[in-house]
Structure formats: structure tokens, C-alpha cells
């Protein structure tokens, strides 16, 4: 893997988002996951992942520009065979903002403009892919220039001839063509603004960019055909169109895209990333909805770090430590010799020593102090069998006992040190790369000394303070989330508060309530909040290992994101579940069910 040597390496812990990383930085820090290998297949996929789960990295890594720089034997042979040519198209909020600011458009006009704009964007993405491909495949500059010239001219003929017959002579490079398409896009926006002001189109002004006002992806398909001839690509080449951040698009846009997923030809397949529950519809314009499994497959990339560790041999821990190590290495020499374990040490809560459960041990004293009668009696019964006692009592209750004792004996939480250790940091990251990097960066900022060196170890109190602040900030910042920020904040607060009270105000059993279950009777408002929380990575469905891509619909069990555990003083585990209805209706909750939705809408 190569990292650019032209400028000093940046501190990659300060850059948590893939969009902010250069190609070389993404490639150097990329950790291929199972989802990545699945996505390399020539099939339509819709990638579902909470915010920060790594969707953009996946989409970017599938593009030719990135894939061709990734040093891995399978990938190198795939690139050399030219079997896959990936293009990356962000449908970011700035991009969608230019669609959403025209509420006066009829459905037909909105559809037409979306298609026009996506046609231009996919052609721009195609040009970037071609530039990268020419640079990678043709070392001889004169050959490269000759092919680029003929390719550019053919593309001008295909895309622009009807608008600008004179262009063919002037646009000889892909870069010039890209600039020209960008100018067309700007002029189109200006023309629409002018029409809005005047109330109608001026009869003397022809529509801008007529060649792109055709069926969606037709200009792209034409370009693919031209490139296949000019670059002598094999007929088996599959083009991957990676549309990132589709959560910002409207249902209307998804319906249009779905139509192409249904009718796609084998040489062009789609990889669309969006948040869970933000593939807005399965409808198509063909009157027949998409068939999951046939027309496309979902790939759900959020992972529970506990399940990952237990089913795949510490894969969650490995992913997080690899993430830390790759970033530290690429940010050289700042963090030379620094390890996550060295910086943070062990976690009292999550890496407990289970050996000391003798008759006079402090663990047994805690059990007698905090456990309920039933659990104490059961512990007595199992005391003769060390193995059974460990599996059925100690393993399950040890963390909860330590946490309960720590909270009770630390009024004010100034000296609390229980949320510490590398296992705790990893667990609170929820296997979400952006969250993990933010946590790591918070620790590293604290570890930074005035002389710019980094302390090799952070105290447990400091770690706890950082994790608690991070946890609280993660929850409070959702209050402004579109449409339902306040309600979502209250909803999660009610659930977290309930779990906190069941842990800290009642005697303990071996399982703590850390999940909730729902069934078909759930109200539409609550279901909407759950969907949004899953999208933001603040709730996770307890998906089964057998069917990991299935997103539950108005049923199932969900757990609070582990990042919220320090804020609510909970154990970062799934625990046992309680029905949502009983949680919301509990008189013990700080805010009742009614309180979540008692607002009036007003425009600011």
C-alpha cells in the first residue's frame, strides 16, 4: 500500500470521515470486510449502514480509481483482467439540496430534472474513472494522450454535438470535457432560477444541456460503449455504478433508481448505499415492485462487536485495533510505538478476572449486597461447581455488580473510573468506524503533551470522563435531527432512564434489561423513531447470524447503542429485553409516553 510522500502525513485520527480522506489515505487505511468481498460480485446491491458505518469507504473502494491502487493479490488480478470498472457518484446533501429547493416543480418536472442531473453526474464520474484508467494502464504519455484525444472527441460527439457543434474541436482532454459539463450544470440551474422568477421559460432561450434530458443512464451507457471500443475492453467487463448517500434522495428518486435495478443489463450494475430503513420504497416505474433477492440484495454492514467477537473469533476487536494501528501508521511518526492496549489498559467491567469468587472474596460480598434473593440462592446452589457457577452466575453478573458498586460509591462521578480500558473503548465504538475514530481521537487529544509528544498511558478516570462526555454529546446532538430530533432524544432518554433504574434502583438478577422488544402493535410514531435511531446508529436490531441482512419490520428486539452506555450508566451489552410498551408506560420513567410527542410544529 502506498501513501503519498509529497506532503507530510496528516493526523488521520482527526479525520473521521471517508469523504475527507485522500485516495491514498483511504487505500492505506482500508480494512477489507466480508461486505467488501460480497460487493465485488457483478450484482445489484443496496448497502445499508448507520451513519459512520463505512458505506462511503466501501463505495469509494469499489471505484476503479481506488481499487487499482489497493495492493491485494485478488484485487490486483481483478483490476488487471478489467472485469470490474467502478464509478463513484456521491448524491450528497449539497447535490440533493439543488433538487429539493424547487418545490414548485410538478412530479413530472422534478423527475425530469433529477434524471437530467444524475445523467450529468454519472457522466462526470465516468470521466474521472476514465482519467484514472488511462493513467494506470498507459505508461507511455504519447499513447495516453492520443487515446484521450480520440476518446474525448467521441464523447463530445455523443454528449454535446446537438448543443455545441463547435465543441468537438475545442475539447480534446477529459479534464476540459469535465469543466464543460460542470458549466452546463451551472447554466441549467441558472436557467431554472430564471424561469421561476419570470413564471415561464423564455421562448427565445433553448433548454440547456438537451443531450442529457434523455432516459436515465443513456448518456452513460453510450459512453461505456465508446470506452469499450477505444480502450479495447473485454466484453465481459461489468461497470459498477456506486451511488453513495442515497438516504438524502426522495422516494420519487428511489422509485426511478429501482426501475433501473429491475431492468438492468449485465454490463452495468448498481451499488447503492443508504442508511437502514432509508431505502424509501421498493416501487418501480414499471408497475412491478422490486424483488429482494432477485433484482438486488441488501447488505447490512452494521455489526454488533460482541457478536463479531463471539462468532468470528475476536473479529470486532481485531477490526478496531487494526483501524487504530492503520491510522497510527499512516499518521507517522506521531504515534510510533503506541498501542491501544498500552494507552488504555484492561477494562475492569469487560475483562474481569473471574477466578476470585472464594467465600470471603469481594465479588461474593458484592453479590450478596446487590443481587436479588433468587440470584443469591441460585449462587449458593451452584457454589459446588466452579464451571457452572462461572457460566451461570459470575460471567453474567460480575460487570453489573462492579458497575452498580462503582456508581453507588462515587457520588458526583468525579472519580468514576469504571468506563475504561481498550475493550470498553472498542465496545462503545459499536464497530462503527467513524465512532471508533472519534473516540480514539478524543483519547489522543487528551494524551497529547505540550511538546507534541503523546503520553503512553491514560488514567482510568480520564478515560471514563472522556467516554462519558462523548456518550452524552452523541445523545444530545440528535436533538436537531430533521423532523423528529426532539422526540427521538426524549424517546431514547426514556428507554435509557428505564434501563438505568432497573440496574441501579433494584436488586440485580443475572440478566439486566438492556434491550427492548416490539411487535405489530407498535404505533407508527414509535416505529418511525426506532427506524431513525437505527439509521443514526443509536439503536441496533438484534439481527440473527443466520439472516444478517434482514431488517426487522415492526417487530423484533433492539438494543441501545453501546456508545450510550456511559451516559445512562449501563453495561454495554444486549442483556435481556423488556417490551417497549411496558418501558414507555412505566410510571418509573422520567418522561411518560405522552411526553414524547407533545409539541407543536412551527417554522423557525
Amino acid at each position, binding site marked *: 500500500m502506498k501513501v503519498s510522500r509529497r506532503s507530510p502525513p496528516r493526523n488521520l485520527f482527526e479525520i473521521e470521515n471517508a469523504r475527507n480522506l485522500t485516495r491514498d489515505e483511504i487505500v492505506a487505511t482500508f480494512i477489507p470486510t466480508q461486505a467488501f468481498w460480497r460487493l465485488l460480485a457483478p450484482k445489484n446491491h443496496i448497502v445499508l449502514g448507520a451513519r459512520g458505518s463505512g458505506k462511503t469507504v466501501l463505495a469509494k473502494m469499489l471505484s476503479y480509481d481506488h481499487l487499482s491502487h489497493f495492493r491485494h493479490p485478488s484485487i490486483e488480478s481483478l483490476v488487471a483482467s478489467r472485469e470490474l470498472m467502478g464509478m463513484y457518484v456521491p448524491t450528497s446533501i449539497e447535490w440533493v439540496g439543488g433538487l429539493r429547493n424547487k418545490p414548485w416543480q410538478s412530479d413530472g418536472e422534478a423527475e425530469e430534472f433529477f434524471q437530467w442531473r444524475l445523467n450529468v453526474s454519472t457522466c*462526470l464520474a465516468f470521466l474521472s474513472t476514465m482519467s484514472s484508467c488511462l493513467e494506470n494502464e498507459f505508461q507511455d504519455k504519447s499513447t495516453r494522450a492520443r487515446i484521450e484525444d480520440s476518446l474525448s472527441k467521441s464523447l463530445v460527439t455523443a454528449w454535446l454535438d446537438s448543443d455545441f457543434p463547435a465543441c468537438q474541436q475545442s475539447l480534446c482532454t477529459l479534464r476540459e470535457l469535465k469543466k464543460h459539463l460542470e458549466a452546463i450544470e451551472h447554466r441549467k440551474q441558472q436557467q431554472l432560477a430564471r424561469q421561476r*422568477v419570470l413564471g415561464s421559460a423564455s421562448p427565445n432561450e433553448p433548454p440547456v444541456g438537451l443531450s442529457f434530458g434523455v432516459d436515465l443512464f443513456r448518456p452513460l451507457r453510450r459512453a461505456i460503449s465508446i470506452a469499450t471500443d477505444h480502450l479495447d475492453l473485454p466484453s465481459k467487463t461489468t461497470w459498477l455504478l456506486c451511488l453513495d448517500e442515497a438516504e438524502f434522495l426522495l422516494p420519487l428518486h428511489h422509485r426511478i433508481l429501482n426501475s433501473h435495478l429491475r431492468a438492468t443489463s449485465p454490463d452495468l450494475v448498481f451499488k447503492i448505499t443508504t442508511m437502514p430503513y432509508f431505502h424509501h420504497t421498493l416501487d418501480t416505474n414499471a408497475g412491478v415492485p422490486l424483488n429482494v433477492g432477485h433484482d438486488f440484495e441488501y447488505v447490512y454492514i452494521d455489526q454488533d462487536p460482541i457478536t463479531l467477537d463471539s462468532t468470528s473469533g475476536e473479529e470486532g476487536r481485531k477490526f478496531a485495533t487494526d483501524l487504530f494501528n492503520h491510522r497510527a501508521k499512516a499518521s507517522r511518526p506521531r504515534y510510533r510505538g503506541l498501542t491501544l492496549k498500552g494507552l488504555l489498559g484492561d477494562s475492569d467491567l469487560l475483562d474481569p478476572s473471574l477466578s476470585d469468587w472464594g467465600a470471603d472474596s469481594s465479588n461474593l460480598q458484592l453479590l450478596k449486597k446487590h443481587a436479588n434473593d433468587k440470584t443469591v440462592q441460585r449462587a449458593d446452589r451452584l457454589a459446588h461447581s466452579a464451571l457452572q457457577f462461572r457460566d451461570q452466575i459470575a460471567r453474567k453478573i460480575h460487570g453489573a455488580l462492579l458497575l452498580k458498586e462503582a456508581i453507588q460509591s462515587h457520588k458526583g462521578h468525579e472519580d468514576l473510573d469504571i468506563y475504561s480500558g481498550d475493550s470498553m473503548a472498542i465496545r462503545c465504538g459499536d464497530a462503527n468506524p467513524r465512532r471508533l475514530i472519534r473516540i480514539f481521537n478524543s483519547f489522543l487529544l487528551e494524551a497529547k503533551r505540550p511538546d507534541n509528544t503523546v503520553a503512553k498511558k491514560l488514567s482510568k478516570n480520564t478515560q471514563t470522563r472522556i467516554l462519558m462526555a462523548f456518550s452524552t454529546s452523541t445523545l444530545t446532538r440528535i436533538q436537531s435531527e430533521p423532523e423528529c430530533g426532539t422526540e427521538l432524544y426524549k424517546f431514547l432518554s426514556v428507554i435509557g432512564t428505564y434501563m438505568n433504574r432497573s440496574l441501579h434502583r433494584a436488586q440485580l438478577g443475572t440478566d439486566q434489561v438492556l434491550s427492548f422488544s416490539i411487535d405489530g402493535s407498535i404505533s407508527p410514531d414509535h416505529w418511525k423513531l426506532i427506524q431513525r435511531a437505527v439509521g443514526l446508529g443509536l439503536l441496533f436490531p438484534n439481527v440473527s447470524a443466520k439472516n444478517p441482512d434482514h431488517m426487522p419490520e415492526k417487530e423484533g428486539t433492539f438494543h441501545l447503542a453501546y456508545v450510550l452506555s456511559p451516559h445512562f450508566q449501563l453495561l454495554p451489552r444486549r442483556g435481556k429485553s423488556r417490551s417497549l410498551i411496558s418501558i414507555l408506560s412505566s410510571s418509573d420513567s422520567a418522561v411518560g409516553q405522552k411526553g414524547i410527542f407533545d409539541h407543536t410544529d412551527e417554522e423557525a
Partner: protein
Amino acid sequence: MRLHRVTDCELNSALSEHYDLAILASGYEERSTFIPKLLKKSRSAKHVVLGFKEVLSGDDRSANDRYFADHWTGTFTTTSSDDDRPVYTALNALLQGTRGVTRILVDYSSMSRLWYAAILNWVRYACQTDTAIVDLLYAVGDHREHASPLVITDVSAIPGCEGGSGFQSQSIGVFGLGFDGSAALCVLDRLEPDKVFAYLADPAAHDDYPQRALTENDELVKKHSGFTLPLPLNSVERTFRSLAELILPHLDRDEITFVPMGPKPHVLAAILLAMRFQNISCLRVSGRREPPEQVGTTGQVVGTRVEFKRERALRGLADSIAKVSR
């Protein structure tokens, strides 16, 4: 027409001018009538009062509506803060046939940003004269109480400020800081720019406001922003110029998005920059607050004169300068 010049304008100068049209707004804020009460009706040939459709009840709104009904004859249009059509309809009808220089007075203290952007867009695309002068007045808001968090309802580009295609090498987010720190973070999470610059009003309406804005936006400032630029609230001219200098090195190669969350004169400066430069977009973050924030005024007024010229007039100007220099 092209944006030609942005200058500060004294209140007294605006009060003594004659205008073809005055555009005012009746909202739920007490300050809606502060500037109209200073104006002389006779100095503008025609008047339009825009009223918010969203908030029709409430003591302040009723009092404001009564004031406009009693003191300002002319067109009174009630419309949604999300709808700019009535603005265009009024301007097309009332300013048709204007000769010489078109002069418009706007009190944007209580206006939706879509409305005052629409007025500027009308001048860009529909004004028939060679020169247009828009004087924008703003009664400085008094946000003494901490308001509840703003819940975002939509993030979209201000019409006419859509920027480029989003395929530049890197993206830059320029955040105008206000008192809604969590809303700014929420937009930042969605925008995910490569680089973040921030600016805030300093000097502001009150001495403690800059620190309050910094505190509210602590995470954005400390963890994301390269630096925070203090810009005066009372000078759109200086704000416009300083922001232009800030983004100048990035203009040709980066995608620049303004997210103005601070006071309206700073929003106006961002809109004007997006109207001036092709690859700058300006986002409108709309939301709801419960209850709506009651904003009074400090009594200060910020005046801005925005001059537009038709391209041929600009060419003529350039020719004249060339002749003089010869």
C-alpha cells in the same frame, strides 16, 4: 444582471432615499415593525407587506398585522416562509415599466431567507433597467433568553445559490455560527466537508454574544474548524469582503458550501457570495423550535446597499474607464 457592489448604508441615508418599492414583513417577532415605524411611507412609490402563513395567531403577530393594516396601504400577502412565488408575482406586477434605476427597499429583519433571496433573484433575472439598487435594512435582534434546540425540517440550497456539481477535488464547509450548536453539528454530520471554516458575529449585538456562540458551537470549533473568523455584525460590506478573501484560494478548485446559521446580515453576505461565484452554494437550514423564539430588537439597524448592473452597463463602465485612462 450581475452583482456589482456591496456597500454599507447608513440608516439616515436609506430614510432619505426615494424608492420604487418598499418590501416589509409581518411576523411573530416584536421587531417586525421597528424599521417600518422609522420609515416615511411617502418615500416609496409602492409597498408590499409579506405575512407569514405559518404563524397567524399570537399577540405580537396580531399587533404587527394591525400596525401594517393601519399604517401601510398597498399589497398585503400572506404566504409560507417556504414559498417565494408571491414575492415574484408582486415584483413582476409592481415594478414593470420602471425606467432609469430600479430602487427597492427591503426590511428583512423578520423575513424568511427564501423571500429576501427571491428579491435579489428577481433583480438578477427579471429587472428591466440597466441598474438596480436594493437597500436592505435589518433591526438587530435581541436574543436574551436561551431558546430551545432548533429541530431541522429541511436542508436545501437557497434558489439561485446551488453552486457546482459536487465533483471538485475537495469540499469546504463555511459555517456561520449562531446559537444553535446542535443544529450546526447536525448539518456538519450530513455535509461532511473536507475542510471547515467558521465565522461569527464579533462585534455582535451584545458583548457576551461572541462567547455564547463559541460555547454553543464548542465541538464544531474545537474538533472540526480550522479557525473561527470574527466579523462585524454591523457591516455586510466587510463581511462579504472578508469571506471572499477567505475562500478566494479555493474558488477555482474546490466545492464551497456556506451554512449560515448566525445573524441575518451574515446570511445575506453568504447569499451574495453564492450569487457572485459559480461554485459556491449556500444552504438554507430550516427548522422548528418549540416554543418559537421571541426576538426583540436592540435598536441598532444594519443597512446594506446591493447594486446590480446589466452586463452591457458593466461593459460601458469598463469602456468609460478605459477612455479616461487613455
